[in-house]
């Protein structure tokens, strides 16, 4: 028998089909590895071994009975803890929702269950998906399997670390400004942010509604495409999901796009880009050239306004989305909200309760963004900030439209640096925000992006290559990524994790 924790999801499907391994064996292997290693990695917030094994055994029974099984039958999938799972804790990495059990299920979770995937556990994240390192989680940071002294990136750091450490072959994350692609890059795996509207957001606890998108993690492009195919599609419960047919992403995956034209984004090679990252990305571009792609220099002139625009739009929406956490209906409610100062005496008890609950329930980054967003939307400031950011957003979208008239896919680094140490950026919000400098514009424009492993630094830290495609061109994006993967073996590298 193969070691299921060293296999891809695609091969595990084939092995089960051939009767060489059962879903239960796969599940046990991963649970055992989680038991052994997650104490170091801390990718998971919760693992429900009993439920996972029961689901795996049910798949085995149905397979034995000759029944049809789903596209992810018996494959363990790790779930970022901002996706609602019915009756199970869904904390968003926040003290505010530490005891929150949604009475309903996210559409994506329903699709995974319908595909017979095994939901093996909920993974760590920056609180409410706000951050780039998981250091903002109320339940402690996850660690990068390649170097336990470093962060796995974020906000979907737990999901990325879980796949990188072979604690699950597949994982689901969410990407608002790079929260899938950046941790995928820092953990040496594949992560894809679908086009806005490609995957239903119903049941994803909102951070910034116009930017949030759920997406897949895998060890390679095939696994990532497999998972995307399961979760994509229009959903009546999400008005912003788009009624575009979902192609079979696997059917022509190994066919290189014909006459592929790659655009090297000039603005993605500026100040702050780590030299080793730049070298690896330029090398990757040469790989594409060798494979017959035409590479052109392109410009996205408004990219430099990406971070400022993003850090107005996202906090603005966040300030409104997170207003509901006031201790009234659900979530954390402060026990003591007696006035502490003479000034507070005049505040009605209800307001004091809300204030105390929010003060206690939210971490500092979440509070920072709520304040930023509240300010940006305030009367007298909205025109300077929020409305200005919307204009920039339009310009950024126009930049991409123009670039995609010249080339099929854009290419550049995913993150300016490899994985950073704990605390390195945590005390400097701006430095942390710049970690997403190459990823936020994708979300502002609503287009699709993927990060794939393209090298290791001398210190053996993974480097990610980012590829971007127009809206709903995920198939092109995946096939383009696969061109690189077939020519290299970076996706097969694994971290050394001592047990």
């Amino acid at each position: 028998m193969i070691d299921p924790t060293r296999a891809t999801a695609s091969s595990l499907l084939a092995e089960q089909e051939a009767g060489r391994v059962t879903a239960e064996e796969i599940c046990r292997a991963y649970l055992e590895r989680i038991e052994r290693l997650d104490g170091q990695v801390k990718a998971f917030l919760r693992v429900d071994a009993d439920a996972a094994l029961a689901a795996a055994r049910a798949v085995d029974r149905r397979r034995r009975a000759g029944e049809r099984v789903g596209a992810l039958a018996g494959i363990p999938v790790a779930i970022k803890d901002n996706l609602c799972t019915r009756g199970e804790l869904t904390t968003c990495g926040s003290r505010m929702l530490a005891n929150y059990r949604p009475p309903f299920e996210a559409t994506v979770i329903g699709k995974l269950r319908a595909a017979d995937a095994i939901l093996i556990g909920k993974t760590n994240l920056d609180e409410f998906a706000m951050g780039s390192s998981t250091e903002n989680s109320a339940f402690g940071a996850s660690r990068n399997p390649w170097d336990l002294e470093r962060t796995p990136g974020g906000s979907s750091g737990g999901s990325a670390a879980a796949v990188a450490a072979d604690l699950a072959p597949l994982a689901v994350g969410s990407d608002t400004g790079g929260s899938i692609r950046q941790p995928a890059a820092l953990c040496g795996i594949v992560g894809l942010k679908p086009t806005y509207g490609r995957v239903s957001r119903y049941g994803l606890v909102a951070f910034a509604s116009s930017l949030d998108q759920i997406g897949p993690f895998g060890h390679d492009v095939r696994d990532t495409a497999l998972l995307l195919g399961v979760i994509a599609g229009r959903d009546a419960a999400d008005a912003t999901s788009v009624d575009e047919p979902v192609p079979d992403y696997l059917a022509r995956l190994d066919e290189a796009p014909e006459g592929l034209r790659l655009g090297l984004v000039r603005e993605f090679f500026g100040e702050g880009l780590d030299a080793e990252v730049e070298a690896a990305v330029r090398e990757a571009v040469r790989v594409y050239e060798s494979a017959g792609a035409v590479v052109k220099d392109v410009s996205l002139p408004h990219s430099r306004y990406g971070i400022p625009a993003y850090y107005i739009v996202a906090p603005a929406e966040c300030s409104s989305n997170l207003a509901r956490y006031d201790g009234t209906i659900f979530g954390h409610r402060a026990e003591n909200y007696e006035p502490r100062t003479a000034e507070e005496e005049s505040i009605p008890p209800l307001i004091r309760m809300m204030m105390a609950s929010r003060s206690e329930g939210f971490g500092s980054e979440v509070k920072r963004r709520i304040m930023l967003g509240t300010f940006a939307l305030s009367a007298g400031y909205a025109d300077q900030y929020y409305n200005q950011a919307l204009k920039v957003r339009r310009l950024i979208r126009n930049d991409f439209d123009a670039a995609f008239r010249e080339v099929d896919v854009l290419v550049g680094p995913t993150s300016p640096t490899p994985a950073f140490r704990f605390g390195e950026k945590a005390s400097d919000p701006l430095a942390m925000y710049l970690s997403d400098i190459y990823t936020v514009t994708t979300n502002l424009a609503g287009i699709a992006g993927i990060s794939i492993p393209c090298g290791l630094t001398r210190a053996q830290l993974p480097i990610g290559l980012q590829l971007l495609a127009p809206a709903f061109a995920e198939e092109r994006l995946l096939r383009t990524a696969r061109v690189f993967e077939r020519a290299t073996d970076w996706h097969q590298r694994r971290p050394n994790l001592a047990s």
Partner: protein
Amino acid sequence: MDYTLIIGLEIHVQLQTESKMFSASGTDFGLPPNTQTDPVSLGLPGTLPVMNRRAFELALKTAVALNAEIAPFTKWDRKNYYYPDLPKNYQISQYDLPFSRGGWLEVPPRKDGTGGGRCRLVRVHLEEDTGKLIHGNGGWSEVDLNRAGIPLLEIVTEPDLRSAQDARACLEELRLTLRYLGVSDCEMQEGSLRCDANVNIHIEREGKTIATPIVEIKNLNSFRSVERAIEYEGQRQYRAWLADGLTIKDAPKQTRGWDDEEGVTKPQREKETAADYRYFPEPDLVPVVVDAAWLERVRGSIGELPRARRERFEREHQLSAYDAGVLVEQGKEVADYYEAVGEALLARDGSAPGEVRKLAANWVTQDVLRIAKERKLEIGQFPVAAEVLAELLHRVRTRQVNTNQGREILSKLVEGEGTLEAIIAAGGYGMVTDRGALAKTIEEILAANPKALEDLKNGKKKPEAVKGWLRGQVMKATGGKADAVLVGELLEARLASEPGGSG
């Protein structure tokens, strides 16, 4: 007092839909607290709103009926504020691109012909309703979210109204119109129609017009309180101006609440801070595009509105303004019933249509509505079909039964005592129209009651009084079956020959 009231109304109307504005939860009134909720209307994390297309269409229908201009492109916005009856702490509403602008409502004049006229609208927009706070015992407040998320139409008028009566009439006409459209039940008691009034007064002094500070009156829970509160507020503002001389330039808009028991408006505590709702486009919803075909479909579904119907009843049916008003104000079903009775009567005998309509109108406004009211019945539940009433009225008209008998028969029909034919047969209804027999009865009564003619002769009683008494005696003698018109003629002729009997 020499001032003019300047009034604008801000009206909220709950639309009658099966489900809420943005979720599948039900909308019934009066259920136990928090039983009409779902994850979306509770604002649970992870939920998303989805627009109720039916609600949007009802809103569209209303705005078109109110002559508003419909925007081809409209979007949703978030209105952000913290309040416990608002589960998400933002309300999905419409800010800078409402689905409609402008429009007007024709306010009918008073019965004496004064007042009324066109009241222009600023805009009509759609939003979700909030929940309700119930201030309970022990300093705690309870939150009921059954109402949260119900489709709510906001209608804002220009300050075109000039009297408390007109404000009330405007609101009543709006209710009638919305009920005709079938978009809302508009029950003020249940809160499906709510109204705030913005009021100030213009005082003429030495050729100049002085405007007092504007007051928004809240807590208006009935049509009567709308009228009373505005009337009161005008007087209060006048007194206040006499005392402090403050004008619109000296004071910001103030909020006062109407106290129905005391009959006064009282200052209400203003919101903690100046309202900054931080509006921004709702990212969870997509804009709505209203194309010409959709608009045409909606236009086609509107039908005849109260004002047009009143005019048609006066013009085509030759009803008095009063009768037309009563029939239309009672609601669409009553007017429909009246029309059906009239049509069925005309189908039997098409002569003198004006008289026929008047007969139908009289019976419906007097008898049918009285019985329905006594029995607390909607007209739709009235046990006598329009066709049956028409047959009965046909017999009254052709003098087969008299009016009093007709009333009795109608009561028996309502009681369910049988078909019209059966009741007439069983009750022996039918009129005594034999001139000779009735004349004989009159002579018998006069012979038995000589005092009647004596009273007439010595002027102790007026001829009309004697005639009335005699008519009653004739009816009594004939078991109520005498043809009252004929009896009248005979008595007239008979008494004219007596001393003191003419005139």
